[in-house]
Every structure is written in structure tokens, then in C-alpha cells.
């Protein structure tokens, strides 16, 4: 007898409802956001779509609104108008706490400045997002072993696991930040200039790991960079100038 079994990807096993169109993993429509304060900045994005498993390089000058766009996608800030839909969930419909939980479950973040907790060990830094993401945590049998495996894949020796983050070199910190984003295989990885502090060889290894993650787990990857030479390694390249309209000036 033949069993007809559909295996659902892990990231779809979620309490958040999925999009009707599975190819549209990320969708931004008519989104506006402005920073008030001494210097006014407004970002408008008419339309941005990312398909599932797609690897996208986002290029843009400094001040073009890349970080604001990433914050909107992460749900740490909420669009003033328009729709930000990630993995089938309209972020503006969620409360702040729900957005935090959603981010923990669905998005692995790699910051430009690594943003590790300097006083915490490498292991604690890597395992931190799992504390707030039970679904990601449940995918792993042994959390510490997985953290160690990721570190090994990224070229960090086992002894570094107990080191404090503040005692690591810049390159090592970058790798720990990558391991923290990758652990528990989140369906979406956002990386903000992650290769800026790495030498050419480590940069290549690092990118290969991200792409491998995308291939193996169907992870969508959105990476911000100034380095246009990386473009040919991604499925698609988006220029901020093409998708975003920015206004800036002092409030009178």
C-alpha cells in the first residue's frame, strides 16, 4: 500500500497563518515610515516582494533607508501606512509582544556591528534567540551541540564556546553573530552588511554557509551590502534607489 504523505516544511508549522500565495514570502505594499526628531526622515516603499528560498542582495548608499527597511521587516518599528507581510503575517496587526515573538521564531538577524552581549559567553549569545522561540528550539535535539556544530562550520574552535564575546576578535564575533542567526533554522535571515569585517577567505566561507542554509532549509535570505561584487552570488539584486523614495530635512 502506498502512503500519500505530504511533508510540510518546519517553518510552516506555526500558529501564524500563511500567505495564500506561497511564493510571496515577504510583501511590502505602499509602506511609509518617518523618523521624527531634530532631523526628519521619511521612507516610502511602493512595492517589494521576496519569494520563499530566494536569496536577495540589497544595495544602497548610506542613508538610503536600508536599516529602516530592515527594522520594518523585523517588526521592531511599525509602518505608518501600508502593509508589511512576512511569512503570511501582517505585522501591523500584531501587538508589540506578538511581533517580538514572531521575530524570534521567524527571523535570524545578523547585524553590521554584530550586537553580541559582550558579558555573555559565545554559547549563551548563540542560544539567546531560542529562549524566546519555542518552535525554533523544538527543532533541535541538543541545543549546545547544535551551537557547537554551527561554530565549527563557521571556523570557530570548540574552546571558544565558553569565552566571553568581548574577548573575541572582530572576525570571531561576526561568526558568532551568524551562528546566532542560523541556529534553529529560521525561515528568514536578514543580514546587515555581515561581511564588512571579514577577510576574503572567511567572507567566502561565511556566504557559502548562508547559501547552504537557504538551500537545505528553504530559507529566504535578504542581505544588505555596499559591495556590488557579491551580486552574482545571489538570486536577485535590489537597489534601494529603485524601490524606495526618501525625504529628509530639518523640522522647522
Amino acid at each position: 500500500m502506498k502512503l500519500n504523505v505530504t511533508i510540510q516544511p518546519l517553518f510552516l508549522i506555526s500558529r501564524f497563518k500563511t500567505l495564500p500565495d506561497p511564493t510571496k514570502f515577504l510583501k511590502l505594499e505602499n509602506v511609509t515610515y518617518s523618523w521624527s526628531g531634530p532631523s526628519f526622515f521619511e521612507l516610502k516603499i511602493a512595492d517589494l516582494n521576496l519569494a520563499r528560498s530566494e536569496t536577495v542582495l540589497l544595495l544602497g548608499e548610506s542613508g538610503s533607508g536600508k536599516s529602516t527597511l530592515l527594522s520594518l521587516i523585523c517588526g521592531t518599528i511599525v509602518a505608518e501606512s501600508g502593509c508589511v507581510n512576512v511569512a503570511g503575517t501582517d505585522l501591523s496587526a500584531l501587538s508589540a509582544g506578538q511581533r517580538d515573538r514572531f521575530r524570534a521564531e521567524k527571523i535570524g538577524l545578523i547585524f553590521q556591528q554584530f550586537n553580541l552581549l559582550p558579558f555573555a559567553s559565545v554559547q549563551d549569545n548563540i542560544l539567546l534567540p531560542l529562549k524566546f522561540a519555542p518552535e525554533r528550539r523544538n527543532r533541535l535535539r541538543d541545543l549546545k551541540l547544535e551551537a557547537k556544530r554551527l561554530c565549527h562550520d563557521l571556523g570557530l574552535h570548540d574552546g571558544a564556546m565558553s569565552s566571553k564575546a568581548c574577548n573575541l576578535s572582530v572576525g570571531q564575533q561576526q561568526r558568532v553573530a551568524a551562528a546566532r542567526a542560523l541556529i534553529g533554522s529560521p525561515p528568514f535571515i536578514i543580514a546587515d552588511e555581515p561581511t564588512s569585517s571579514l577577510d576574503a577567505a572567511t567572507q567566502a566561507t561565511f556566504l557559502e554557509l548562508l547559501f547552504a542554509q537557504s538551500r537545505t532549509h528553504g530559507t529566504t535570505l535578504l542581505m544588505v551590502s555596499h559591495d556590488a561584487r557579491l551580486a552574482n552570488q545571489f538570486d536577485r539584486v535590489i537597489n534601494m534607489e529603485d524601490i524606495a523614495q526618501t525625504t529628509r530635512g530639518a523640522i522647522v
Partner: protein
Amino acid sequence: MILRLAFASLAARALTVCMSILAIALSVALFLGVEKIRTGAKTSFADTISGTDLIIGARSGSVQLLLYSVFRIGNATNNLTWESYQDIAKRPEVDWIVPISLGDSHRQFRVMGTNKAFFERYKYRSDQTLKVARGVIMEDLFDAIIGADVATTLDYNVGDPIVVAHGLASFTEHDDYPFRVAGILEKTGTPVDRTVIVSLRAIEAIHVDWQGGGGIRGQFTSIEAKRQMKLEPNAITAALVGVKSRLKIFGLQRFINEYPEEPLLAILPGVALQELWQIVGIAETALIGVSVMVVITALIGMMATIFSSLNERRREMTIFRAMGAGPRVILGMLLLEAVLITAIGAFIGLILLYLGLFAGQPMIDTAFGLWLPIEPPTLREVGVLLGIVAASAIVSVVPALRAYRMSLADGMMVKI
């Protein structure tokens, strides 16, 4: 894990955290210290006299009579005649009566004339009686018994001579008839420790050739002649009375207060003590107020420290939020930190208090005659400590909310 990270974060800011803990510890030690002194003073006052039903003196205020007769503070406005004393002593309600005669001094200490019954009848701290540490109770006319503080301060031993001065601040001394230290009393924590006790007859004896505050020129009665004299006083300062039945106290008090021969006053020591506390209650309240303000200042200082550390912790909070920590975690971490700092501070404050008590107890006793008992914290003190910890949690809500709002506003863009 979050708890471990919270501790690691605290350890990373050890200096500022230690300063906050120190501020809390000092304020808690000060607050509890004031509380100990306040309750110690109250207990010490209340324990000064017990077992005495009435104190009799010339008519004045009840607090004044209590102060000069028991605490040796201030002076009597008038005396009680010996006839009245004897008349009262004969009353059927009276179980015992002890005369007290004050007026002279030795160095900075008061001299009290009384009889041997004082050593049996005077009781303090519930039911303690006076005990002689060295020597004996008065045997000779010119024997003096000195309190523990007198002996310590003046370095007196049994057999040392004592010359009594006439009055309290007088240069005239009864140096013709020096006393001898016959005994030294054990420490009591009462004004008795700072008193030179002689017999009532001796008080009369040293004043035989005196008139109007000075010796009569050319007149000298020998000690032997004085020993043969009756030496009955004309008047005394006050008397302590024990009544046969408690039911008779008010009747006897009324009788004395309406005594037809001279204006007298009989007071119940407990009631007079209450009146005294009502008078000093304002100072007591002010003292509590000051120490409460100290604690509040320390808590506000802690809040200021948390506020000022928010900028340096901005990245930390944003990392937590970016990793998915919700508002509860951010608020909880800051509340936990505040509670932890205060709890450790309160504990160290308690240790400082007891170290201070061990070190300062003899000095406070010597300087102020206040014996502070070293006892475990009372339920009230534990309650106060828990209240301070709870207050710290409330106070830290403000910076915690600000931290959360900051982490929201920062988004993914903290590049400090």
C-alpha cells in the same frame, strides 16, 4: 539563562552597581540604626523603673517629678517634709517607701541620699534588683556606693575617697567629711549607673555646720560627734512607694494629691513615662521622618543610576528585543536588577548595623547612658526591609518603561 545573563550584565557594571548597593546599604543601616536607638531609648526609659507604684514629691508636673527623681534630670522645685513622708509611710495602703534626697554632686555625677531599702526595692528591667559588683552596701555613715559608670569614668575602686560638692555646680565642697567608696554596683543601663549613693543620714551629717549654702564660720562638729547625732532630715526630694494592693494605688494617689498639710504630687511612673513620650514624640517623628527621607533618597539615587546606565545598556536592551525578548522580559530584567541591588544593599546594611552596634554599644552607653540591646531583627524591621525592596521594584518601573520605549524606538539601528 535570562537570570544568568542578568547577573552577568550586573557583573559587567560592577562599579556602578556596587555604588548603588553601598548607597542602599548605608541608608538601610542608618534607618535601622535610628530605629534601634529610638526603640532602645524608649525601652531604656521604660525599663528604668519597675515595681514602684507611686513616686511622691512636691507639687509640680508629673513629667518633671519623674525626670528629677528617677532620671536625675533637672531639679525639684520644692521638697517634701520629713513629717509628711512619715505620715504617708504610716498609711495602711503602703507596703514600702524609700526616701530620696538629691541636691549635691560629685564631679559630673549626682549624689543621692537614701536608705538601704533602696537596694532591695528599686527594680529595673521588669524585675531586676541592684547588685553589688565589688565591696558592700553602706555600713558606715560615710560609706558611698557608686554606679558602674561613675567607677569606670573616674576610675574609682573600693576604698577610694570621695568628696561631695554642695549643690550641682558649686565650688564649695564638703571636704571636711570625705566619703569612702564602699561598693560598686553592677551595670544596670539606668541612671543609677551615674549616681553616687550615700545614706540619708550622711546627707544630713555633711550639712550639720552649713547654713544658706555655705559652712558656718568657726563652727565644726567632729565626725564622732556626728555619728552620735540623730541626723533626721527636715525634708527629702522624693519618695518611691510600693502599695500592698494594686486596687489601693489610686486611693493613695488621691490622698497624697489632696494632702492637706502641704502641696504634694503622687504619680504613677508608667503614666508619667507615657506623658514624657508624648512630649518627645515630635522629635521621635522627626527622627523617623529624616531616616525615611534617607531611604527615599537612596532609592531615588538607585533610580538615577539605572537611568544613567540605560544609555550604556541601550545596545543590550535592543539586542534582547531583536532576539525576540518581549516587553515583559525587558521590564522584568530591570525590575529584577533593582530588587537584587536593593536586597543585597539591605542585607549589607543589616550587617553594617550589627557591626555598628557591636562597636558603638559601649560608647553610646558611656556617652548617653543608652544601652542598645543587640537582638535579632524584629518583625517590624524585617517588614521595613521587605518594604524597601518592594519600593525599589516600584521605583524601577519608571526607568524600565523608558528602557523598553528606547529599545522600541531604536529598532535595528543602535550603533553606539
